[in-house]
């Protein structure tokens, strides 16, 4: 099992750092799955994580100048690690001015992801900083927990308003309630609602548009649906807030799929990164 990669482009480094920062905001630990073509940050919907799950996919060629991997075995050319994304984020933060950054799997006092950054210095010799981030190697028999989630058979799919606006609204609602109802219909309308004994607040968004899924998914439910009918799900407001807080750049596409009273599925598409986030319904 071997992994080694190198990044030299500042833009790529910044971009990668932003992705990692986003992930770090979502959970303390996550799974990093490495394959010859992609990197995935995965959170499986365990109760310990509050039932949320996440799937973030990066094309390695868009970030790395060098990328070598030798997986567990030839028929399973992958590596699956549990890592604290906060450590990754902190390590990358110190590498922002680096001439090059290497990320590799090493064995020190324990298995580590080693991030070595070559920093500019006052002399002819570069300053080198290395961060050894302890990781846990996930054995192959547990991999099935970290497969790409299937698209839920949603009732409504809708484009999200600017995430910053949404964040402002949700941050304020958070002060009033622990739960938020997110509802939308097929006519491009979405509402964020909270209800408590003292107050009810609803923020209405209009003309958001509904993504055409076409034959892409077997969305039997949404085909025969009344365009005005709202599908809604009540979620833990902190989970939504965490998700919105982590977003540092507006993605090229942001969508939300709602399975009535079951789950909210958020999808962010950047040019070379996609992030999916699932928030389960609470009663």
């Amino acid at each position, binding site marked *: 099992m071997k992994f080694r990669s190198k990044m030299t482009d500042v833009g790529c480094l910044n971009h990668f750092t932003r992705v990692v920062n986003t992930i770090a905001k979502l959970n303390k630990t996550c799974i990093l799955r490495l394959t010859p073509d992609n990197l995935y940050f995965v959170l499986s919907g365990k109760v310990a994580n509050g039932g949320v799950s996440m799937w973030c996919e990066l094309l390695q060629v868009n970030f790395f100048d060098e990328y070598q991997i030798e997986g567990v075995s030839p028929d399973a050319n992958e590596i699956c690690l549990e890592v604290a994304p906060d450590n990754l984020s902190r390590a990358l933060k110190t590498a922002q001015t680096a001439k090059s950054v290497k990320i590799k799997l090493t064995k*020190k*006092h*324990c298995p580590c992801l080693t991030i070595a950054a070559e920093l500019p*210095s*006052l*002399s002819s*010799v570069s*300053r080198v900083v290395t961060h050894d981030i302890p990781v846990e190697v996930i054995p192959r028999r547990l991999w099935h927990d970290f497969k790409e989630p299937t698209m839920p058979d949603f009732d409504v799919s809708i484009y999200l308003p600017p995430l910053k606006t949404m964040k402002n609204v949700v941050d304020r609602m958070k002060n009033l309630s622990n739960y938020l109802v997110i509802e939308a219909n097929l006519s491009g309308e979405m509402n964020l609602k909270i209800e408590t004994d003292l107050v009810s607040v609803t923020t209405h968004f209009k003309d958001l548009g509904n993504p055409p899924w076409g034959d892409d998914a077997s969305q039997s439910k949404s085909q025969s649906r009344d365009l005005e009918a709202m599908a809604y799900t009540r979620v833990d407001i902190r989970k939504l807030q965490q998700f919105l807080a982590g977003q540092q750049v507006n993605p090229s596409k942001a969508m939300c799929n709602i399975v009535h009273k079951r789950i909210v599925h958020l999808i962010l598409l950047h040019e070379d990164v996609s992030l999916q986030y699932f928030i389960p319904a609470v009663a």
Partner: protein
Amino acid sequence: MDYVATGGNVKVLAKAIHSLSRIGDELYFEHQDDGLALRTVNSSRSAFASFFLSPLFFQRFHTCPGHTFRCKMPVKSVQSVFKSLSSLEKTVEKCRIEWKPERSQLTFTLHCKHGLLKTHNLSFQDCESLQAVFDKEGCPNVLRAQPRLLVDTVLNFPPSLEEVTVSVSGDRMWLKNHVEDKTDQFKAMMTELCLSSEEFDHFSVSLQTSITFCLKELRGLLVFAESTGLPISVFFDDPGRPVVLSVSDSVLEANFVLATLSEDAHQNNNNNSKRASPPTPADDFMCDDMDSYLIAMETSEIAGASSQKEPQPSSSHGPPMPNHRVFLDSVMEEQQQERDEEEDLERPPNKKFRSLFFGSVSPTPSQVANQTTHSQDVLASDSEDEG
């Protein structure tokens, strides 16, 4: 006693107080004929910091000749006088400090723009002279760097990190985080940074060594050094001996004396002692052989003998720099040689007693004698501190 500082020196004074506040709870004022000393020590007495301001630092330095005074007060209350550094810089024109023994008060008067006067009357307590015992000149290793270098270096470590291990060889310095508990090593991110000697203004290492000390105090001094742009000198010796961080210019001198972990503690907690010379990340970065660190983890063995723990021959110190020898008397020179010989042998199982603490609070002759029993060579007190 009556002191007046003006202009930029008010800010320097304020920064000095802020630096000291990061270390101890009480601020010791001591007036001497050749200047004003501000000192503090932390609660565990493992760190001591002092600023010495010469009469030229002040616009007025009025004293009754032959009269000394000393007092202490909570550093927090002095800090509150200089609370906001940014507004201080803009508004305060001069700062006057008066000693009022009859009321047991120090009065700080800030003369601000538009004739505004802010007066703080701070009660003080009498105290003994606070003094750490250290000798910078006797240290075999002296480094001097611009504050920016150290600030950039420290930034690579997490703010929560308490202790850092500094190792030096003839042409390099390594810093890495020190993790007390073995089990924590499996959770904590380990950071290591290598600096070439070329980045330092002065780099003389005659003793390859590795010391561990608290980052907090270093950060405290860095705040001061960065704002004044003064280079920082680091003087150190074997593990267990204090490390002295020093900043000076023509009108002021700051010395931060920090205890370092003794060799034994070092060995127990951290297998990387000075003989287990630090790994060489620089080389490893340059000539990258994939197989050298990519290891089959499926067949995972216990992490035991990694290459960095292998002892390396250590007989490679250069000759001690002559300019340090100047300060050593002949007896010490012998000791130095003895020590050098020791270095060349296999590691002695148990070295001399190393205290985590060092002398402070008006060392009486007997205390000084006590101190010297075990580490004879470096215990001349610093010249500025004669009370």
